[in-house]
């Protein structure tokens, strides 16, 4: 691993000031399980992705940790660990979609280290990207190896130039819960709904979100779901121990008294470069009896999908998983 300087700011302003001072070769670190134990250990670098010379450790800022739940919703500090989220009784009660998604991340050890901010902002797992020798678009190179290579785990929707799938399970759940991110930067704080947080390769192939190099995600806010909201999470893995999703589905929706879809979201992980909100499925269900219409609605994923040479199976899996997840939520 490359040597680096470590900064330990005591508050967010100091952290941002350090990022501004050092510039793009400084990076914030949460638990470090991706940035240090992944990207830096494996020398994942390129022209568009220099390895950091300096790390700004957010664990020295106590305000960034903690879970608060009130009438309006849940506020979770970016440095809260995934384990803390999984174990929070308050979150389990009203935001089970998030606690389940967090529980499905990696292994207990990684969840003890991994923070919510780090999980949302982790870099993709594309096996070309993670190989030090592959200088692909995402690292500033001029090639995508997945198109002609083994793309069994790559995107079936929304790939262009780059075909990663967004790796974060919590991001998928948070988008379904209509959550928003609070961001601190040199120009002050801003709040960005997750609807607008993630960006695809067409917008900027070097990044997966709108966060700027001198900004820090400070917290996540999830509005209290409407009464009676059904929440469900499912994640299909090849094996039972730690594994990224082949496909995951996060659903949060309400139905009226006769079981018709009133409002809600269906979001898929593992299929696109961003957590993929399946608005076509939602639209198909709108006003209809969920139980009777879900099969047909889930099938619309087929029209959105443009599978690559080796990942058509994910389309079938996505369709099945959407159907099962929604039916599961109905109980």
């Amino acid at each position, binding site marked *: 691993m490359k040597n680096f300087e470590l900064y330990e700011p005591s508050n967010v302003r100091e952290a941002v000031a350090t990022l501004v001072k050092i510039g793009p070769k400084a990076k914030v670190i949460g638990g470090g399980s991706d940035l240090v134990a992944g990207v830096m250990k494996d020398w994942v670098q390129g022209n568009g992705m220099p390895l950091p010379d300096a790390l700004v450790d957010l664990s020295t800022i106590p305000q960034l940790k903690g879970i608060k739940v009130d009438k309006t919703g849940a506020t979770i500090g970016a440095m809260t660990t995934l384990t803390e989220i999984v174990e929070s009784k308050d979150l389990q009660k009203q935001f089970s979609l998030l606690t389940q998604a967090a529980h499905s991340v990696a292994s207990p050890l990684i969840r003890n280290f991994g923070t919510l901010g780090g999980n949302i902002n982790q870099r993709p797992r594309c096996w070309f990207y993670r190989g030090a020798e592959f200088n692909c678009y995402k690292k500033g190179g001029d090639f995508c190896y997945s198109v002609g290579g*083994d793309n069994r785990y790559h995107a079936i929707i929304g790939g262009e130039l780059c075909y990663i799938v967004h790796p974060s399970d919590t991001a998928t759940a948070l988008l379904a819960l209509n959550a928003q991110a609070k961001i601190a930067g040199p120009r002050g704080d801003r709040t960005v709904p997750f609807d607008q947080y993630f960006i695809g390769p067409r917008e900027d192939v070097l990044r997966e979100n709108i966060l700027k190099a001198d900004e820090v995600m400070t917290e996540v806010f999830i509005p209290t779901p409407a009464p009676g909201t059904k929440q469900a999470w499912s994640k299909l893995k*090849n094996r039972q121990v730690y594994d990224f999703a082949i496909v995951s589905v996060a659903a949060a929706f309400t139905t009226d008294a006769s079981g018709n879809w009133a409002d809600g979201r269906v979001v898929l992980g593992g299929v696109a470069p961003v957590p993929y909100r399946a608005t076509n499925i939602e639209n198909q269900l709108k006003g209809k009896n969920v139980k009777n219409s879900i099969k047909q609605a889930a099938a619309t994923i087929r029209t959105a999908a443009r599978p690559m040479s080796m990942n058509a199976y994910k389309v079938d899996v996505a369709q099945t998983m959407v159907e099962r997840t929604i039916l599961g939520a109905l109980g």
Partner: protein
Amino acid sequence: MPDYNWPEPDSAALVGKRISRVDGPAKVTGTAKYTYDVTRPGMLYAKVLRSPYAHCRIVSIDVSAAEKLPGVEAVYVVQGAGTEIHWQGDDIAAVAAVDEQTAEDAVQNIKVQYKQLAHLVQEEDLSKAGDRAKPAAEQVVGNPDEAFAAAEAVTVEGYYGTSVVTHCCLESHGFVAEWEGDTLTVYPSTQAVERLTGQFAEALKIPATNVHTMMQYVGGGFGSKFAVDRWGIAAAHLAKQTGKPVKLMLERAPEQMVAGNRPSVYAKVKIAAKPDGTLTAWESDSWSTGGMGGGGSPPMPYIWNFPHQRKRHTAVSINAGSARAWRAPNHPQGCYVTMCSIEDLAAKLKMDPLDLVLKNIALTGERSELYRQELLKAAELMEWKRRWHPRAQGSPGPVKQGLGLALHTWAGRGHAAECRITIHPDGYVEVSTCTQDIGTGTRTVIAIVAAETLGVPMEMVKLNIGDNHLPPGGSSGGSTTVGGVSSSTRRAAMDAREQLFARIASGLGTTAENLETVNGTVRVKNDPSKGFTWKQAAAKLGVNPVSAMGKNPDEAKGALTSSGVGGVQMADVSVDTETGVVRVNKMVAVQDCGLIVDMKTAESQVYGAMIMGIGYTLFEERVMDEITGRMLNPNMEFYKLAGLADTPEMVVHMWTDAEQQKRGVIGLGEPPTISPGAAIANAVANATGVRVPTLPLTPDKVLAALEKGGLA
């Protein structure tokens, strides 16, 4: 000199009982020190620059920038300008520096110009192999043409394969090397402490007497750790250049790329039977790779001696790290191809595969009666007859359940080994032999045999292993260790006991042949009131301990080991036919291996083998990128091993009848890892009604097979 033998089972105090491994506490508390844990005063850390290309020539190499980096103490060029490199990850140059970071930085600073050459890294599509494919001569037994052409013949044709898998030792390969003058001390992570001595001496051109190798614990080998390897020699050179100890352990990525793998096999198979299921003919066209060397040639048909056979095998050399022995070399592949085609034939005949194999059991030769009994026992433990259903005729709904079976065999005769046992006057017993415990329980087995023979508690036995200055104890491979070291230990202990008797008999008013050791005492046979406690007896030795050597083999004085073990495994799986995910619900293993020294560690080998088997059957595969020639999953994230949550209910039944007791101690580490591939894959075929042709049985392949349909 006594005639050597094993104690009768009913008189044994320890042999065959369930005894926890003696080094268990050290391992779980962390006091056990692995090579990875070795630190020496002033030790440097080495990192290796490795080829980024699968096939290339080194045009030039410039290490000056690396050498100038502060903290770098030496650079050693392993393969210099002009060398042709045949696989990604091959060693180019190694750097020794004061810490790991600096060594890695230095590696990044070595400038190499490569000329890329054409590569081949995938072998499943044989049509692309060109002159890399080397067909061996066709082998014919009987008259296969006639047998296939017979009017009554029922034939089935199928395609089966298993990908290359890697060893995934928890502790990667590596060494600590340290010189004192022209004497080299090495701490290796190895299965062959003693064998490395000569390898280092030869490579470094020093007398073998100047090499001292020592290792107490190793984090797995599975067949991949018998050699000094390029990086071991590099570590020794760097230590020489700097005059300081050097530690060189492989990173996970090179561990996966260059430190060994199991050859693949792909095969097109046609088999025939009479309408009643009697197997008649076998024909196979197979190919495999084990890297540049071309790879192994799995035994086919495995176990089943079809009367008529035609076989063609082609070795394909590809630009990827070389194969090494992998737990039961060649057998899992041969078993997979053979047992899958037999299961497919059973499906075509609409027969229960258990009935089909029982009907043909004579084709397995001299072991056939034992196999028959083992099959029936396994069937009982799996409730096969109650639960088996014809293909795809299980429960309705998307999740289908199915059963499958396979049989295997292995040799496992004890290797050559010597052992010295010393009985000290304070009663402690010292056993010295240069073997190593690769996790199989070797320490425990030696302690049991010594304690059993001398009638002392195991705590009185002190072991010295893992040091080439001790009597030669052999390498740990081929499941030959337990037979070798248990035999040499038994012989040494019996001789030492004899000597002890001779020295103290007169004190008991009798002669040596009238003495026995029982439960911590030395006493007169038929007169238990006359005797000493063990400690009293030992004290009679005065200042001169008793010491004896034991040696295996020494057939003239009785064989304590023999050869040939086998077993049957059955798997129960669930397949989600909408997602393609396979789960193993239960596995049953019935296994024979002669006289069992420790029932607990023996069963443990079978459990571990089945878990490893689930890994290579459902998840593991080396994925190579055709365009760049590089490995895509040289990590523990995309190279997927089975974990605890993937582990099913496992039932292990060790075969322990009088017949087995008489055969002496035979090896067990490898055989139970042979059958899982075929047993699980056959269960998946039984559940879904279709054959998923190649391992691993990942969701994409399961769904594709379901879409395609068909029997085989």
